[in-house]
């Protein structure tokens, strides 16, 4: 047997429905608020594959680039660049939009020259050209850089773990005064 709703019941149902609608809207709004973006304020930033250069990079973001924030982890901000997650230091980004044209802050003088490229983009001299012009051998530089590439992130992690050193491994209380 079908029960007829009273006017009060209808009003109560309407209120509940309205509450649900507002609740959903609030959740959607909150979701939008969590979708944080940041902008690159340095002329260019290497987005690192981990929290440190030892992990390599996932890409480079130029000044003014908008980066969706995935998470904040201390001084590191995990962002997305071209579909890949990576890390940047908070000092290299801005919470508000940055124009790629405004180099005033980069100049440090408060002057804007209205250019959108860094000296690097404009072709500041690579070290090899400097060496060539001075008739200097660049083999040492190459040796240095190849040496760095030999060390892998995994190797470093194992090295740090074996010695119980590395980021997040604060020293313990000393049994002897320092410098003795």
């Amino acid at each position: 047997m079908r029960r007829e709703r009273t006017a009060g019941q209808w009003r109560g149902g309407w209120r509940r429905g309205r509450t649900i609608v507002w609740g959903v809207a609030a959740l959607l709004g909150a979701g939008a608020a969590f979708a944080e973006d940041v902008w690159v304020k340095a002329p260019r930033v290497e987005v690192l594959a981990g929290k440190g250069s030892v992990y390599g990079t996932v890409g480079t973001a130029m000044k003014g680039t908008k980066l969706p924030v995935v998470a904040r982890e201390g001084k590191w901000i995990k962002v997305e660049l071209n579909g890949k997650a990576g890390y940047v230091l908070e000092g290299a980004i801005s919470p508000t939009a940055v124009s790629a044209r405004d180099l005033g802050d980069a100049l440090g003088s408060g002057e804007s020259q209205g250019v959108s490229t860094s000296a690097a983009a404009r072709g500041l001299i690579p070290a090899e050209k400097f060496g060539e012009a001075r008739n200097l051998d660049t083999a040492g530089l190459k040796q240095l850089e190849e040496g760095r590439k030999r060390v892998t992130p995994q190797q470093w992690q194992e090295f740090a773990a074996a010695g119980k050193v590395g980021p997040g491994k604060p020293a313990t209380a000393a049994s002897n005064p320092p410098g003795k």
Partner: protein
Amino acid sequence: MTRWIKQKLLVAVTAAVPVALFVGAPMLAAGCKGLGTMTDAIGQSIGGSTGSAISAAGRGMKAASLDERDEHEMGRSVAIVVTNKYRLLVDSRLNDYVTLVGLTVAMSSPRPDYDYCFGILDTDEVGAFSGPTGYILITRGALARMQDESELAGVLAHEIGHVALHHGLEAVKNAGMTQAFNDAVNTSKELSQFGQLVDGASDVIVNKGYSRTQESAADAEAAKYLVAAGYLPGGYVRFLRRIEAEQHGGGGGGGGAMSTHPGSRERVTALNRQLADMGSPGGQSLKDRFQRSTATLRRAG
């Protein structure tokens, strides 16, 4: 003969422009000025540079907006100059070890994002250098006088401290190099301008060195990085004391740069005070690992 070299490689560049440079820095334990023959050799190849005016642009050199690629090329260029004066030691296992220790400290510093490179200069002299974006070189002579990994970590931490504090940039600015940098950037494809900047920056670092205040600041940073990385910070103090003792004991460390920079004792005192304030932190010294990893040095020596 042992000589505590304090060299500074540079850094510099700046900010005045979109590019900016930064950092660099040198090391060493002792003073900051002339480094004897090593220094002279470098200085001769570099000619002094330019200069003038430390303008508003100069004041902006420490601004965050530095183009790291540009700075990187500065660091690479300085590394070319140095490695043409001092041969790099060819010992990949030993170099990897120094790199691993250096990275451990660097990743615990405020600038773990720099692309650090570590190398060993094949000379008996005692010293270390650092250039923009973390091109850090330590001498075989310095390694040979160390006893454990915490001492090596300490010296590298000092260099990383100079880098993080932009001391190289300050040195260039103070030497009136800002105009050279501006010229280099504004005429971005002029090799002569860029070369002048590299030369001048290297000259500042190598011949003039950092101030005692900067050395002390780098020491203070080093202590913090060592603690953050879990190394025994007292190891660095121990190494400084050993080098100072060599100088005063006539064990090869006297004369040269060290004799003009009698600040090691003061630095040791300041470091001990800082560490006491920090609660006398302990940490890893890793003597066995250091001895194993550097065994080739003792066999060769």
